[in-house]
């Protein structure tokens, strides 16, 4: 059958269906490394100092609050019977959740071959690490006697006792510490080629030494790249089930108990969706101003913002569905305690929390169905703030809303945070932003080698690869 096969004519897509390039204005490889490295080189701009000084002061306040709390006792917080979990656990879950978007971007989107992730993954992974650091403070402090924190780990103690692995809180220790370690390693592996770039362009001796030390002698050898890419793929494959398990296990801290409002099977997927949702809120809050401040509009393009808004919309809708399902199950269960809890979420003492949660998480992100809201950076920024606030209130409703009215009226109470709670929470923002601002001045906040790899001229089979590497 060697007859001439009829030529298949491929229809040419109309120009409006063409995908926008991931790096705008056809930038060259050299432009990408120069642009990203320029953020770390030269004097810090004024806005950086304007952000850094208050962040650092907040960090100092965090230190003062923790010293006060350790030296006096957990009683300085508002936790009081019946609400023994207050802002500490709310903020723990909130910060951990924020971290999840970074891992989603770096790992899950990598496995799904979403090439746009390269523009935002480095900053998002940094956000993950700093958010988990903020989160980790709370359970470590909440144990009261901080100097016994090491009992959480399977280390021999003078009492001969071991950690009690039948408790979800113990699972949480393993989940969060593994999450932190793997996130740092994943981030570092991604940084290796970029640290080599920084080493090779460093001017001062100390920079050459430090970047060179941490670049581990990376040369860009293709024999190295092949092992590197495999390791990166495996890490993405490991981080994906990890990130899903971390917030599932965090949710088991609640769901394994028998308290109305906590004791539900829907919690693991509901918490994971909420975590990714809040994390994307924080990614947008950070990157929408930063892309302008750092002149990264060609790398974090409007297409990036658009897809991140769509992920926010999708996860926000999952969260909204979970709220509806919780209410439905509470009604359908016929359990009076369950019904009581859910009725009082909206019409009880803390009605504003329930309202904020429904409004900010389920309703407001629906605006992202409309293209105008995804294209307007001010609107995106404002909605992203609502997302952050809304998800905080969700955790408030879950933690305090379920605890303050127990099965017996004798166990009813009212919870309010103390000034120490508030200042500690503000202080964690100081820690987060101090770390983030230092990170962007020291390390490339865009994955340089990965962004180069998604430009059209990087593909040797693209006609642009034969031209001399794009415009300068």
């Amino acid at each position: 059958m060697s007859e001439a096969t009829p030529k298949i004519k491929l229809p040419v897509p109309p120009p409006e269906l063409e995908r926008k390039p991931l790096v705008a204005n056809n930038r060259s490889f050299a432009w990408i490394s120069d642009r990203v490295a320029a953020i770390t080189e030269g004097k810090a701009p004024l806005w950086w100092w304007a952000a850094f000084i208050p962040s650092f002061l907040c960090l100092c306040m965090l230190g003062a609050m923790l010293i006060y709390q350790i030296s006096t006792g957990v009683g300085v917080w508002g936790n009081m019977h019946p609400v023994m979990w207050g802002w500490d656990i709310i903020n723990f879950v909130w910060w951990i959740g924020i971290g999840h978007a970074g891992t989603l971007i770096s790992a899950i989107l990598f496995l799904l071959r979403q090439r746009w992730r390269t523009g935002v993954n480095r900053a998002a992974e940094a956000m993950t690490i700093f958010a988990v650091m903020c989160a980790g403070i709370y359970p470590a402090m909440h144990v009261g006697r901080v100097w016994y924190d090491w009992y959480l780990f399977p280390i021999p103690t003078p009492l001969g006792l071991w950690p009690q692995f039948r408790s979800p809180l113990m699972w949480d220790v393993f989940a969060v510490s593994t999450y932190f370690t793997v996130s740092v390693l994943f981030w570092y592996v991604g940084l290796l080629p970029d640290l080599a770039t920084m080493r090779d362009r460093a001017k001062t001796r100390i920079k050459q030494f430090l970047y060179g030390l941490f670049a581990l002698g990376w040369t860009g050898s293709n024999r190295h790249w092949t092992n590197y890419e495999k390791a990166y793929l495996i890490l993405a494959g490991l981080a994906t089930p990890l990130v899903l398990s971390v917030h599932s296990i965090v949710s088991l801290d609640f769901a394994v108990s028998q308290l109305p409002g906590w004791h539900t099977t829907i919690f693991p997927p509901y918490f994971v969706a909420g975590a990714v949702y809040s994390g994307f809120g924080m990614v947008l809050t950070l990157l929408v101003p930063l892309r302008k401040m750092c002149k990264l509009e060609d790398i974090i393009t409007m297409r990036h913002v658009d897809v991140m808004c769509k992920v926010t919309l999708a996860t926000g809708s999952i969260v909204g569905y979970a709220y509806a399902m919780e209410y439905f199950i509470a009604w359908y269960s016929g359990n009076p305690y369950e019904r009581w809890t859910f009725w009082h979420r909206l019409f009880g003492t803390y009605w504003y929390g329930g309202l904020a949660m429904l409004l900010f998480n389920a309703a407001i992100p629906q605006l992202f169905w409309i293209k105008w809201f995804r294209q307007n950076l001010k609107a995106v920024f404002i909605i992203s703030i609502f997302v952050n606030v809304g998800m905080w209130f969700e955790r408030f409703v879950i933690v305090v809303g379920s605890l303050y009215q127990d099965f017996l009226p004798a166990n009813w109470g009212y919870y309010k945070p103390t000034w120490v709670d508030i200042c500690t929470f503000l202080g964690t923002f100081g820690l987060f932003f101090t770390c983030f601002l230092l990170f962007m001045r020291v390390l490339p906040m865009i994955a340089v080698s990965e962004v180069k790899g998604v430009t059209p001229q990087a593909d040797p089979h693209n006609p642009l690869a034969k031209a001399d590497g794009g415009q300068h």
Partner: protein
Amino acid sequence: MSTTSKPYGIIAEFMTSADVLHAAEKVRKAGFRRWDVFTPFPVHGMDRAMGIKNSKVGWFSFIGGVTGYTTGMLMIWWMNAFDYRIVIGGKPMFSPYAAFPPSYELTILFGAFGAIGGMLFLNRLPRLHHPLLKHKRFGLATHDRFFIVIETDDPKYSETETRKLLEATGSKRIEMVEA
């Protein structure tokens, strides 16, 4: 020729990923063994052009993961059901269900250690000294240029023929690298 003054290799510079890919195909066909391509990002199709086999990092990660899971299960059984038994809420001393979440996390943790350790081991990193890192043009390999290096230790290496081969691949700048 004394071994001390023998250069490390010959380096050819290329401007685009397509050029270096085609050059790599020619170098492989010429039968070289001790040579490498240096690029600022992994170039698609380069492994095939160079004839590199699938990376073995997966095995390191797999062994790490198995070790992690086994460690988790054995550790929890030993601690809670053997070394210091305490009845808690009438729950069994050891149950694979309760022991699963921490073991799962340890699987991932050790698997990640395996992947990274394996990658570094296979790449012989960290390596803080390399003859190429002293070469003044080589810094561009992490910026926007592409290089092919053929080591003088390669049995097929010859001062004139290898240079001719690299010139034929279209490289405009060919230099020797000091050891």
